[in-house]
């Protein structure tokens, strides 16, 4: 089974058009002290900036930024939690937008001391969290109208995803498998963004009784009896064939194995909790329940 993402591309176009239109109507005064050299720290923050049509104002990004792919060409200032203060200063930013928890704290303090405006964006893996994130980023980069438009479209997306999820009469039990290193199944438990996206897609998490991404014992996997396995789409050596997956003794007799039900999706799309999350939820829903 494969999922399709066509709707999201259309949505993005719409957003971009709206954003561009909005930018033309900005007051001149606002435009003058608008940040034009932005460093974005955090994958979902970068995604929101790009969705607001401000990708051309980005001059550097952190190592967790990987969507849209065009941003990968920007200089990398390092991992979100291990920033180099002089490295960030060296690209000459007039604004740093970072997800909450970026650091180290000393580096952030130095950036602020150097007179670089620094905005921290709160993180929350939920629909409300995504909307709040969009609003915060939009206001930080001086695009409140575009922010409202994007938020509206994302909210609309969440509503459609919710409506789609609501049509599900018998939710499927889904096991999110993060990795199967050495035959050990690392699954997404309670409170993870994996569980978040499963709920948005109208499915239940087969992995219960623990929080975070943990290794499950084979017997617990057996007892969970998932209807479907969801995995991140990987290329090269990390790719695992369905045959290998269902050869695992704990999965071999599961309903998922019987039906050959495995869904692979891009990790950042699936777990990123950004503007693409409604699309991800709907795509996952479609893949799960055979629509689309």
């Amino acid at each position, binding site marked *: 089974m494969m999922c399709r993402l066509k709707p999201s591309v259309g949505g993005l176009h719409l957003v971009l058009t709206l954003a561009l239109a909005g930018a033309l109507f900005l007051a001149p005064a606002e435009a003058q002290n608008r940040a034009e050299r932005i460093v974005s720290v955090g994958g979902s923050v970068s995604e929101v900036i790009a969705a607001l049509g401000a990708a051309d104002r980005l001059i550097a990004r952190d190592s967790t930024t990987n969507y849209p792919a065009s941003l990968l060409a920007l200089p990398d200032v*390092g*991992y979100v939690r291990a920033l180099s203060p*002089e*490295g960030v200063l060296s690209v000459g930013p007039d604004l740093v937008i970072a997800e909450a928890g970026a650091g180290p704290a*000393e580096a952030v303090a*130095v950036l602020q001391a150097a007179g670089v405006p620094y905005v921290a964006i709160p993180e929350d893996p939920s629909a409300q969290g995504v909307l709040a994130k969009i609003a915060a980023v939009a206001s930080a980069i001086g695009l409140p109208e575009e922010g409202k438009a994007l938020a509206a479209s994302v909210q609309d997306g969440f509503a459609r995803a919710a409506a789609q999820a609501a049509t599900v009469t018998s939710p499927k039990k889904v096991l999110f498998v993060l990795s199967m290193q050495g035959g050990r199944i690392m699954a997404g438990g309670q409170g993870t963004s994996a569980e978040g996206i499963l709920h948005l897609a109208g499915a239940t998490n087969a992995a219960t009784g623990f929080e975070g*991404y943990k290794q499950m014992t084979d017997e617990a996997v057996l007892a969970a009896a998932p209807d479907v396995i969801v995995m991140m789409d990987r290329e090269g050596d990390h790719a695992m064939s369905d045959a290998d997956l269902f050869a695992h003794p704990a999965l071999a007799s599961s309903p998922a194995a019987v039906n050959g039900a495995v869904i692979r999706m891009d990790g950042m799309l699936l777990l990123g909790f950004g503007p693409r999350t409604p699309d991800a939820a709907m795509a996952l829903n479609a893949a799960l329940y055979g629509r689309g």
Partner: protein
Amino acid sequence: MVALPFARSMPGDRSARAAMLFWVLLAALGLTALLSVGTGASGVSVPQVLGDLWAGQPISTRDRVVLLDIRLPRLAMGVLIGAALAVSGAVMQGLFRNPLADPGIVGVGAGAGLGAVFAIVLGGLLPASVAAVAGNHLVSLAAFLGGWASTLLLYRVATRRGQTSVATMLLAGIALGALAGAVTGILVYLADDRQLRDLTFWGMGSLAGASWAKLLTAAPLILPALALAPLLARGLNGLALGEAAAGHIGLPVQRIKLLAILAVAAATGASVAVAGGIGFIGIVVPHLLRLASGPDHRWLLPNAALLGAILLVLADIIARLVVAPAELPIGIVTATLGAPVFLWILLRRRGMMDL
């Protein structure tokens, strides 16, 4: 060997050579420090800033911050921690009479690591009031307390009737290391993805978080330990003969052992606390110096402080330049450069290794 006309030294007396090495290292540290202040991703140039200052022009905030709040505290921390790690290594090796001993052995490393892991994974569970007081130094504080507590525990285990058994301490250190590893494993299991990344980065060490505030927390522990080290030099020389012989030549062996352990716990604990795990300095530096000018601790300890500082500052320069504008964890740099150099030394001087 360089023959010095002015040194009235007899054959086998390497103190003149060690003294010359001291001055060479001191000069090299000066040059390294200039290089460190003068280089960085941002391209702020010291001569230019000084020229502007001379001409009476104001310095931009950015240049001032880069020089005074980024590069200078980093340099100071590199010097302090490099010296602390190298001297701690030399003192431990002298105490255990083993050139491969490392501060990790006395449990400081394991204990400090455990403290840091606790703070990273469980720091969020602390009452808000405690978290507010500890603030950003929570990990440093926990690492230091962990290192200190484990050292005291080992000391208690290994000391009977006022005599500290170095062998027992070594064994207990290994046991404590294993226990700390297991508890760390449990905490790693509990950690979420971000905490796991934090743990990984912490384990690789970094000076990126250098600040005057951090320096002020580490210096009061590291500087007294470094100042104490020269007082231990004669004692460590004597311990090379074994504890009994050291006592017979008039050394207060028990007091030397206690002071050495305290100094190492303070210096290593504070270093690990503010900069994370930085390997190889503690083993490579004393070893190189013993090859160059002999094992006399009266010269080995000050020279180790200088060479340790030089190597860590150089490693930091590399760490922040190779992947700019990002930077490498410094522990990766010290290990990737230190390990091959060390192997090369072992190959070349194979016959000397048992010495």
